[in-house]
């Protein structure tokens, strides 16, 4: 834990930084600390935000002071055992290509492979949800095969639909709401990561794992119709 730094974020939050790198073991420890904080239910600690290598902790200074939050966190970290909290595993159906997969053919050509080979590669690995951020329910996925690492576009596209499955740099992604993006897109999932009218509104949490499962256009249309009615079209499995 020689890399541990606790950094102030003003008078009502601090960042517990475990490392300066993106690393699965570090991220697992961040998520384990978040779970330990939940269990400890410390009065005055309001919420936390797990990210790649840090945990942001918001507190109420009328109840607990920052230096006290630091003490409690150091104690929790000392007692933390890795791998305590396993995330859920999701098989996320994807219709590769099509409208949402606007970059599939071009990316396959860039990588010198057939679109099918690219689909096999992308759907053949298990991704890890390193963090949720940027937009409601937006999942940053680690574990993209190196050959698929692709720089972002210089000029972002104005509107990418919710459910678009993409690549940005070394990361995979599933778009949670429609919006601008400079990432490259391989396909679309009928699964909605965020639906404010659904309970639960958010599907994925940091620490979950995801594997993509190719589906055809008909299956996509059927699942999309069910998702539009607010139904959850996939269920998680316990991580093996």
């Amino acid at each position, binding site marked *: 834990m020689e890399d541990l730094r606790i950094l102030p974020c003003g008078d009502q939050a601090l960042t517990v930084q475990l490392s300066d790198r993106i690393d699965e073991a570090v991220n697992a420890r961040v998520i384990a600390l978040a779970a330990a904080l939940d269990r400890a239910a410390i009065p005055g600690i309001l*919420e936390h935000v797990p990210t790649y290598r840090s945990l942001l902790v918001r507190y109420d200074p009328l109840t607990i002071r920052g230096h006290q939050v630091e003490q409690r966190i150091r104690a929790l970290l000392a007692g933390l055992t890795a791998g305590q909290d396993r995330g859920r595993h999701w098989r996320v159906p994807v219709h590769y290509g099509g409208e949402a997969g606007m970059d599939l053919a071009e990316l396959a050509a860039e990588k010198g492979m057939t679109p099918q080979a690219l689909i096999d590669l992308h759907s053949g690995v298990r991704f890890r949800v390193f963090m949720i951020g940027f937009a409601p329910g937006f999942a940053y996925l680690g574990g993209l095969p190196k050959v698929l690492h692709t720089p972002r576009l210089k000029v972002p596209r104005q509107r990418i639909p919710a459910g678009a499955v993409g690549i940005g740099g070394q990361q995979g992604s599933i778009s949670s709401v429609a919006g601008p993006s400079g990432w490259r897109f391989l396909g679309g999932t009928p699964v909605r990561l965020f639906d404010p009218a659904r309970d639960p509104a958010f599907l994925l949490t940091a620490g979950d794992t995801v594997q993509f499962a190719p589906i055809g256009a008909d299956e996509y249309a059927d699942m999309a119709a069910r998702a539009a009615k607010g139904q959850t079209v996939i269920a998680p499995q316990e991580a093996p």
Partner: protein
Amino acid sequence: MIEVITPGPMLTVQDAGRFGLRHAGVSSAGPMDRPAHALANVLVGNPQDAAALEFAGFGGTFRALSPCRVAVAGGTIPLRIDGTQMDASRAHRVHAGSTISLGPMPDAVWGYLAVSGGIDVPMVMGSRSTHLRSGVGGGVGGGTLVRGQRLPLGTFDPRAACLAPLRPLPDRGGTVIRAVPGPQDDLFAPETVARFFSQDFTVAPQRDRMAMTLAGKAIPARAGHDIVSDGTVSGSVQVPGSGQPLVLMAESQTTGGYPKIATVIGADLPRLAQLPTGATFRFAAVTRDAAEDIWRVHCHSLARALHPLKVCIARRRPTPN
């Protein structure tokens, strides 16, 4: 019920905000100027976190469809009820059919119109606040309000008094904005951090409920402006590659990949939000401990400013000019 006749810019419904969802990528939203929002509410007898209307620059025109009380706060707001100029520092009774007009604020950016009972749009994920970026809340799927929209009101005691404040809101004056260095101040040279806390900044026109852009001599980071994305809060001062800082506000992203040189303290964030575009100010560094003490005093002073209040003698309906 209250109807929007002419909406002012960025007219949204805001209660205290939607808390506890930052881990899911949703910032709190809520008012840009929380003390002013709370004041407008308490003047009409609402809980201070009730849903009210927020606008930028000027409010526009509204029609009361049922008798209610209204109050405004945020800046100097020209308030007219049925065409008659009214005292904007206190609540007023309005009748069914009355029009309420809110003119431009010369001295502030974010204004509030509170109505007795509160704006009773449906709760989404625990709050009525509009979150423009996420497209949720406000009764209209997260958008700004438009002409003709009718907003239901919660229940209230129609005989309750119109109120006025006895004391001013705390931490309102001055052009020094206090901030705690970090979390990534070490990614800037010490002399750059020192300059950040001594040079003038100007509020740039690029501003909204997500962030304010500051113009001034560029603030370069030592080794680039990319970090491994981590959590952000309202008040985070991000420095992108342009060297022009961005202060994250009520509807910010929950995570970001720019280094954060400092964080504006809670007591001063509403004052920063209210600085007019083009205004010049400086940051002043405070330690976390000092900032926490300032916050405790701020909360105490705010509670005193919001209670007790002066009861105004109810007046008859103003006579139109």
